[in-house]
């Protein structure tokens, strides 16, 4: 082989190619905006927390160039989740025209290697009816034991009426207590329910008026008549999470600080030394608020405090990690460099650090009962010739990760288009139940419309010609929920 070229020729060729580059198609800033809208849509669709039920609307190539608008996110339930995704015929149409010559199935894309929970932990998966005999709809809260599920029965959407315990071995449900509204409780809604070792507690408020007011209730775990413990107003009523001990209800306020009120009634008092702390699951408190958006969500947790013993553990936060959230033992976060949405799992002291493949964290809850982590499965396994993401249609929607064994179990059913929905139990503490409706199907209908009628971000030029408008709705289902109870997963540590 003769070396007939010089480094100078290479440099000249590269510079020459840069100068001779074909002009880019369309406006760069508009393209960047579109890309951002698409990315945001993917995040929003997974973060639409509808009282524990989350609808994930299909991504993938078909709608990937469109813009997402939630079709009234608050009205979504398991059986009626709807959303609209609209694909546009903007300048990208010309950009993709040449590339469409290349078939997208040239190489076999890899598959996401996460097996469904029914295979990984068969003993933990059961089916329960969607509704009680009287038609009230069940909303799973958490597991009480390996064979008992705590359910709230709702008379209408989100209107909790009673607590029931479902025996998964016997396949029967027992009423534990009615959940009455307080006197004069117009517009009263129960919010979070919490299962303590002796009592079950919940709090409620009137979310649609501006009153800063909340109340607390308890009932023995064995059942009985619910008792209102007390009411609070002002900042104390901005309840974030609750817990229940043998003698008190405890809760943290949105602005931080943890309070208690005796079960026998009495004045609320702040627990000493809890400024800036937020309850996670009694007796554990953390220094980050629940939920959190934007910068708050990216913040790393730095300590875990046991309010019973007063012991505080510092979190060993590695460099380059954000959004780290820890329970007493395990932490879940993500790398700042989001090239592959890589997740970070470690113990509080920083040991056992790992990055489970195919699992990503977006907004929302990541901690589950028993130190398990809740992750999204992006399902994206590559990109096709047009640069659109390829999704593995068989991949589960989300996954439960056991940090001790590294076991990952898939949750939910992904429609071929990539969407689906799932629910997480609504307990205040990290829940032990996840559920979905196997019978439900996502149906996408597309039609040609005049392109000018398609919604577009402000500042985008109006497209011309015909565009495709697609609507995705949920159909079927409504009979049974598939429930995974993490308390029934064989013990590992």
């Amino acid at each position, binding site marked *: 082989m003769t070396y007939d070229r010089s480094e100078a020729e290479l440099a000249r060729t590269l510079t020459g190619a840069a100068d001779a580059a074909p002009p880019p198609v369309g406006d760069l800033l508009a393209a960047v905006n579109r*890309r951002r809208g698409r990315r945001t849509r993917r995040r929003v669709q997974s973060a639409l927390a509808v009282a524990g039920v989350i609808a994930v609307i299909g991504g993938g190539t078909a709608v990937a160039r469109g813009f997402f608008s939630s079709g009234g996110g608050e009205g979504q339930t398991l059986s009626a989740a709807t959303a609209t995704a609209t694909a546009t015929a903007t300048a990208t149409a010309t950009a993709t025209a040449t590339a469409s010559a290349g078939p997208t199935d040239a190489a076999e894309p890899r598959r996401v290697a996460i097996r469904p929970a029914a295979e990984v932990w068969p003993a933990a998966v059961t089916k329960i009816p969607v509704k009680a005999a009287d038609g009230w709809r069940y909303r799973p809260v958490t597991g009480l034991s390996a064979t008992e599920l705590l359910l709230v029965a709702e008379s209408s959407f989100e209107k909790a009426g009673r607590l029931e315990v479902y025996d998964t071995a016997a396949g029967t449900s027992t009423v534990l207590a009615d959940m009455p509204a307080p006197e004069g409780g117009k517009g009263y809604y129960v919010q979070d329910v919490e299962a303590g070792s002796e009592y079950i507690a919940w709090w409620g408020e009137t*979310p649609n008026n501006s009153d800063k007011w909340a109340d607390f209730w308890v009932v023995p775990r064995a059942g009985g008549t619910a008792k209102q413990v007390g009411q609070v107003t002002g900042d104390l009523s901005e309840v974030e999470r609750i817990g229940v001990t043998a003698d008190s209800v405890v809760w943290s306020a949105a602005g931080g600080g943890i309070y208690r009120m005796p079960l026998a009634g009495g004045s609320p008092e702040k627990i000493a030394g809890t400024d800036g702390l937020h309850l996670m699951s009694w007796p554990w408190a953390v220094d980050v608020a629940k939920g959190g958006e934007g910068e708050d969500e990216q913040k790393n947790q730095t300590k875990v405090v046991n309010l019973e013993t007063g012991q505080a553990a510092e979190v060993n936060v590695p460099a380059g990690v954000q959004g780290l959230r820890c329970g007493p033992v395990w932490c879940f976060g993500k790398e700042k460099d989001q090239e592959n949405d890589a997740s970070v799992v470690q113990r509080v002291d920083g040991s056992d650090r790992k990055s489970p493949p195919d699992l990503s964290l977006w907004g929302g809850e990541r901690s589950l009962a028993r130190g398990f982590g809740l992750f999204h499965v992006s399902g994206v396994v*590559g990109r096709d010739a047009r640069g659109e993401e390829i999704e593995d249609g068989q991949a589960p929607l989300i996954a439960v990760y056991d940090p001790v064994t590294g076991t990952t179990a898939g949750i939910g059913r992904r429609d071929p288009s990539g969407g689906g929905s799932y629910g997480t139990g609504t307990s205040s503490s990290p829940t032990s139940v996840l559920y979905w409706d196997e019978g439900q199907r996502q149906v996408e209908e597309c039609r040609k419309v005049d392109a000018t009628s398609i919604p577009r971000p402000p500042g985008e030029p109006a497209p011309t010609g015909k565009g495709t408008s697609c609507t995705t709705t949920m159909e079927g289902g409504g009979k049974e929920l598939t429930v995974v109870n993490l308390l029934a997963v064989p013990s590992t540590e």
Partner: protein
Amino acid sequence: MAKIAKRGMQQNGGPPRPWGVEFTDFVAARGDALYRYGYVLAGNAEDAADLTQEALMRLGDAWSRIRKKDDPEGYVRTTMARLHVSRWRRLRRERLVATVPEVTYTDDRLDGDVGLWKELEGLPPKQRAVLVLRYYEDLSDQEIAELLGVSRGTVRSQAARALDKLRIRVTDLETGRVG
């Protein structure tokens, strides 16, 4: 649905905030140069646009942070180089090479060695990135190593392999080959 529990309305997303004026100005001023750099990195217009858009989107997200460092362009160029060598991109590239015949737009206008430009297509992404950073961006091997997050030795060996494949004489003894 007028009456609804508060919990039912929670969502963690929301529409993106509009970009700041400074960012849009930056895109207007530097977009073309960045796209051309992307073209040299990727070898085709479509990938170049993809790289540029993706990197600019990330810059926009990080704008307030990056601006303080005063080197948004360096941030974008680094992001583009890393994206180019990343796994998903590679997967896509292989497909493109397999299915879409390269258009000849550049050939007629190229002031340089058309054969050499074509042969660059055959290089693995990391080797190509090293050459572009060294001969187009004029970076030192140490700078390239930092930018790509690899060792200097890796930069040298990648460059040497690429130059060898392209039959390029190397005058710098340090790179290990004398043509």
